[in-house]
């Protein structure tokens, strides 16, 4: 099966807009047509071959080699096929994508998968902010699909997302799930402040203790059944989240009551030796210090914001 391989000659000094780098665009094209595809550097239009060595043509698969950290809009609106980036990728990767898959070996910038509705984005490095988010002014962010990040991520991931899953192995920064309307964010390496601020619906799962805003209130500690399904799905994609009752349970917090919202933040509480932290001895509300990781000096549950 044919595929197109692009090698970046040298990283551009200013961002290069290359929304033509999508299987939907390239699949029907011959070699010369691919080389002639339009890209925009600053306010000038160039040919793709001015920046990339082009090998092969057509095919549902596109390979990009090199530090494409300043190459924007790759995979924009793609519906099928795959893009494999060996190196870094720039802003808006896979924005508005509807299907297909994107894999990046290095790091990516902001706004990847913004307003996507389907497909899979897998980043082996770290990502910037606004992953799967709504563009400024839009009512909703990603509305389906999956974004998996092995490294860390920036601010406002999943901002106004409506459906789909974002899973991040590393730490994320402020405002994860800002104004979230649905869908799921899995935080495996913790988050900075204001997680779930203004969330209306949706689920944020955290495997580590979180500093929660005072507008979230504790509901219960349990093992939600739906997480079994999510765990199986994520397992297949190489992300394992605990869900078995013998390993522990999730504390459920609801909010953001300032909106008011019906979202939920599920914080994993591993089974520890010793007294059952959500057992008969008063439950987690009375044991919040313990519930938040059992550290000697646990972070306060309702910290002073800012």
């Amino acid at each position, binding site marked *: 099966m044919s595929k197109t391989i692009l090698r970046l000659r040298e990283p551009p000094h200013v961002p290069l807009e290359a929304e033509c780098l999508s299987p939907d665009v390239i699949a029907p094209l011959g070699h010369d047509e691919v080389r002639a595809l339009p890209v925009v550097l600053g306010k000038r239009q160039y040919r793709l071959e001015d920046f990339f060595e082009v090998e092969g043509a057509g095919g549902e698969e596109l390979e990009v080699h090199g530090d494409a950290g300043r190459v924007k809009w790759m995979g924009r609106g793609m519906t099928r096929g795959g893009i494999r980036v060996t190196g870094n990728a720039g802003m808006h990767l896979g924005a508005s994508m509807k299907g297909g898959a994107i894999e990046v070996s290095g790091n990516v910038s902001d706004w990847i998968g913004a307003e996507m509705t389907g497909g899979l984005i897998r980043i082996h490095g770290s990502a910037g902010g606004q992953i799967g988010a709504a563009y400024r*002014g*839009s009512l909703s962010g990603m509305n389906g699909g999956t974004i998996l990040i092995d490294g860390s991520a920036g601010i406002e991931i999943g901002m106004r997302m409506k459906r789909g899953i974002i899973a991040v192995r590393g730490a994320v920064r402020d405002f994860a799930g800002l104004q979230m309307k649905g869908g799921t964010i899995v935080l495996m390496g913790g988050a900075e402040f204001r997680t779930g601020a203004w969330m209306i619906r949706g689920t944020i799962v955290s495997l580590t203790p979180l500093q929660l805003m005072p507008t979230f209130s504790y509901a219960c500690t349990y093992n939600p059944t739906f997480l079994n399904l999510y765990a199986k799905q994520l397992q297949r994609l190489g992300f394992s989240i605990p869900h078995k009752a013998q390993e522990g349970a999730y504390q459920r917090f609801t909010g953001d009551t300032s909106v008011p919202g019906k979202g939920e933040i599920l914080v994993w509480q591993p089974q520890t030796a010793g007294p059952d932290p959500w057992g008969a001895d008063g439950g987690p509300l009375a044991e919040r210090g313990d519930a938040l990781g059992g550290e000697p000096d646990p972070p306060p549950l309702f910290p002073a914001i800012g």
Partner: protein
Amino acid sequence: LQGNSKLQITGGKVYDPANGVNGEVREVCVCDGRIVAEVEGGRTIDAQGMVVFPGGVDVHTHVAGAALNFARAMIPEDHRRNVPFVRTPVRRGGIGGATPTTYVTGYLYAGLGYTTVNEAAVPILSAKHTHEELRDTPIVDKACCVLMANNEILLDLIEAGELERARHVAAWNIWAAKAYGVKAVNPGGVAAWKWGKDAKGLYEPVPGYGKVTPAKIISALARIVDELGLPHPLHLHCNHLGAPGNFTTTLETMKLLEGNRAHLAHLQYHAYGGDDWATMRSESARIAEEFNAHPNLTTDAGAVLFGNTVTITADGPWQHLLYELTGRKWGNLDVENETGCGIVPYVYKEKNLVNAVQWAVGLELLLLIKDPWRIFLTTDHPNGAAFWRYPEIIQLLMDAAFRREQLKKLAPRALKRIVLPELDREYTLSEIAVITSAGPARALGLAQKGHLGVGADADVAVYNDSKDVAQTFAHPRYVLKGGEVVIEEGEIRKTVEGKGLLVRPSYEEKIEEFIRPLFQQYYTMSFDNYPVEMERIEHPDVRPCKQPTP
């Protein structure tokens, strides 16, 4: 500005209702920017198989100023949805959509065959801003109406019964704002909004006042405008806009206006029955009947089309209600002692009962009001829909079968709330020329606009004579502005600059001595910085007022 080229358009069917010309094949001759009886030499445009209209005149639109700019800033998602206008040698860049950028506003209006627009709501305080934007709106001639029905200096004078002085203040305001007419928005209601209230009853005192009622404000302003002899009557956005059951307020307002001229803006938003949103229904038949009996009034449809838009009005309390209903973004501006403003992005949906009623009411009024010279085509841009969607409304008016097709998209229960299914009237091309050009020009008192008689401004739109009405009116073959060909075969060929239309009503110079101390006490701006300088107006055209009748 005024083309010095000679030109004739031959072979086209001419629709010039102001001069009784109804589809006759005749020549239209142009010289030095005006229509002339005959012309020797110059370019000839062969308009065989085409229809020739006077350039469109929009009597009520919102295209410039602080509120519109606020709306532009609030809806980046709309800009992204729309195809950008890329700069070319004859055209500046910009973006269309619900609130097009200034330059694109001019291109889009001209692209429909419109050559004159009236910006319908300008606070005096932001008149400078408005004129700066109008200056950047090419091709079309521009008039604007200045907001006065919640101006606290005027309300205080009405409270004190000093109508004579109020007239001088109003005239001073018009000239200070370099305006063409007077606009009243929700009289008393926007002032009440500063207290978190509204003014729905015409005869209840406005919060903060003892004697001032909406009715008093309306009567006083209508009288003042007539006494000043302004070419355009009081441009009134009635109280209680948008709410179920508001038709009674509108009927009362019409009675109140007997004896004065007035233009009722976007009548669609003022013709609802029912007690609440669940029982809202069309009362366009009652409104049209009463309106037909009031020859002193003109109106514009304020029609709604389904889809995305943004609502902008000085009616702050209404916009807060709309925000609470939709949960969408909300912008609110308070313009010191003069007025307010609210902005809420909105989507009109076919399956929404209220929206379906609104869509129907706009068309019903256009079909039920018998005299096309008194109701004009508008969408209250961008409130009901963007102005560039006018051709869709023209199609709905000219084609009853198409209308019936569209009715099928509504929820069945909506059909019981409207009278549109019973209306078979179809507009003729001549009537379309009336509601898009001749009528609004007459209502604005612009004798040189809206017709193709000798001496008129050579603003002409030439369309294909085709059955596909929406396509026809969306893509004029030629558009002339001031005798210059600005649009040809769908392309902008030349971007001329438009005129600024304004009036200078007479007032006693010493009225400034009355206003200045009040102004210095209550405003954040210095009095001397308040009036708009004449230099700010591009190609000013000061239109005459009738002799004042004090």
